[in-house]
């Protein structure tokens, strides 16, 4: 192990220990922070989930759909059928995965903005339908039983574990042959196909992985906040949040979406408490500036700083033609 790797492993270990120790401290002194932390972690999972799909060039506006399917499935099977909550959450994420496979097959031919609009239409349809159906509670919503007896510390540890799982999956995707398939498909689908990449398989797989994490996060939300309604879980704000954080933090990476989610949520909380009125305007302004002037997100800034420090090292130049 090189010195740099050792530092990275050590840094990760410190973050992990701090993240695990945090709720025990927060629960005694600042219970509100625990609530915020649960929000941030859920947001980070959603962001990473969106990013894993985006790595294949599929820019989804359907993350609210997977989130909502997870939430509603788990809420319904636990309240109407009396299934245990853990089983409900698992079923919720599986329903999201199955629906994502179907949606993935349907949207295979759509690109860019057309794909985004197609997925948005799907998500909005689910919201409208859920709003009308009697067995989903309609517009009134559903009261949902609490996870882990409503205790915040174990709830926090559970969502932290889900984030860890998402991180491991994302990390493995980016370090395996899948990374080559995803990047090739994102850059040029026709060329990827001609080079032997099974485009359909990888695009649908990315959809399923992504939907699993969005679905389980939605189900978790239902059983932690104990009430869901179509306007909340199928909200466009969920889909937009899922894409803003990776763009802000740095696309197609594991750290970027998480960093983006943490900085955005913490920033939002600070703004909310310091600027009483009109904080969303300042929040929006900062977002716009970052997207305009930091096209590779926070991770990109970090990379430039690092390479700036390393100037003076020799650059590989393309030799001039003969």
């Amino acid at each position: 192990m090189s010195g740099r790797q050792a530092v990275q492993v050590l840094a990760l270990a410190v973050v992990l220990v701090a993240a695990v120790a945090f709720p025990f401290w927060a629960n005694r002194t600042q219970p509100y922070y625990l609530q915020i932390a649960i929000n941030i972690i859920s947001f980070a999972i959603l962001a990473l989930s969106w990013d894993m799909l985006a790595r294949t060039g599929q820019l989804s506006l359907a993350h609210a759909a997977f989130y909502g399917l997870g939430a509603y499935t788990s809420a319904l099977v636990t309240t109407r059928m009396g299934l245990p909550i853990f089983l409900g959450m698992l079923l919720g994420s599986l329903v999201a995965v199955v629906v994502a496979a179907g949606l993935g097959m349907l949207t295979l031919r759509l690109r860019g903005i057309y794909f985004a609009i197609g997925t948005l239409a799907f998500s909005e349809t689910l919201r409208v339908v859920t709003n009308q159906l009697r067995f989903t509670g309609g517009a009134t919503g559903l009261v949902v039983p609490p996870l882990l007896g409503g205790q915040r510390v174990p709830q926090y540890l559970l969502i932290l574990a889900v984030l860890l799982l998402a991180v491991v999956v994302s990390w493995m995707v980016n370090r395996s042959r899948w990374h080559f398939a995803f990047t090739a498909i994102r850059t040029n689908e026709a060329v990827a196909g001609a080079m032997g990449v099974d485009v359909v398989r990888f695009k649908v797989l990315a959809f399923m992985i992504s939907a699993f994490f969005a679905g389980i996060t939605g189900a978790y939300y239902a059983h932690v906040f104990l009430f869901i309604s179509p306007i909340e879980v199928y909200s466009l704000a969920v889909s937009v949040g899922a894409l803003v954080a990776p763009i802000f933090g740095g696309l197609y990476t594991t750290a970027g979406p998480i960093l983006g989610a943490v900085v955005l949520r913490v920033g939002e909380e600070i703004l909310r408490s310091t600027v009483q009125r009109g904080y969303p305007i300042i929040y929006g302004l900062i977002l716009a500036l970052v997207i305009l002037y930091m096209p590779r997100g926070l991770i990109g800034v970090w990379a430039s700083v690092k390479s700036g420090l390393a100037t003076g090292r020799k650059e590989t130049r393309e030799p001039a033609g003969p």
Partner: protein
Amino acid sequence: MSLLVLDGVTKAFGGLVAVDGLSLDVRPGEIFALIGPNGAGKSTTFNLISGLLGPDRGRIVLDGADITEITPASRAHLGIGRTFQLMQPFHDMTVVENVMTGELFGHTVPKSLAEARRDAEAICHMVGLDQLVNRDVTGLGVANLKRLEIARALATHPRLLLLDEVMAGLTLTEARQAVAVIRQVRETEVTVLLIDHVMSSVRDLADRVAVLNFGKKIAEGSFQTVAADPDVIEAYLGTEEGDTHQH
């Protein structure tokens, strides 16, 4: 037996018949050139062979197996590799990673990332990209992008290599290097089907030539035979002169 057979293949885009009842017969081990004026249907033919387009009529057969209905990826696995006329590197990847994608997905032998990298580096070396393996593809010049196209196609370990204008835009020296690479590829028992406008390269390389005009085959044979064919001369003189006299 033929390696590749096109049997009455037709493809129309709306009212425009890009490829019209085309039949071809490419034998194992040969270098076969497809030439013709701009818009003759050469690139469409490549898209039909590699599966990016489906024909309206006709059959495409590779080594006795009908491949007309299968996906581009499956055709790659059966041994069809191709380059693209407009260079289409995967941005967000280095040179060697572009080539590795072919090593990882273009054939049916499973390879670890390390094996794929090692083999991709060997191919980069062969086509003259060895100085650039770890460079981002953004900012590469035309000659190196053409080399990368060839390297990526070779990484899929094709039995049939389709080269779409790999000489266009190259200097004379670079074109000669490309000719040498293509000869070297043929030595490894790869059959080559190429499209080119650079007639000197076609003359030097091709065992046989077919000439397309308005989607139809108007002549076939050795370079000398087709170059002397009155129909071919008329087809070329009917378009801009530059087509025949580049380089």
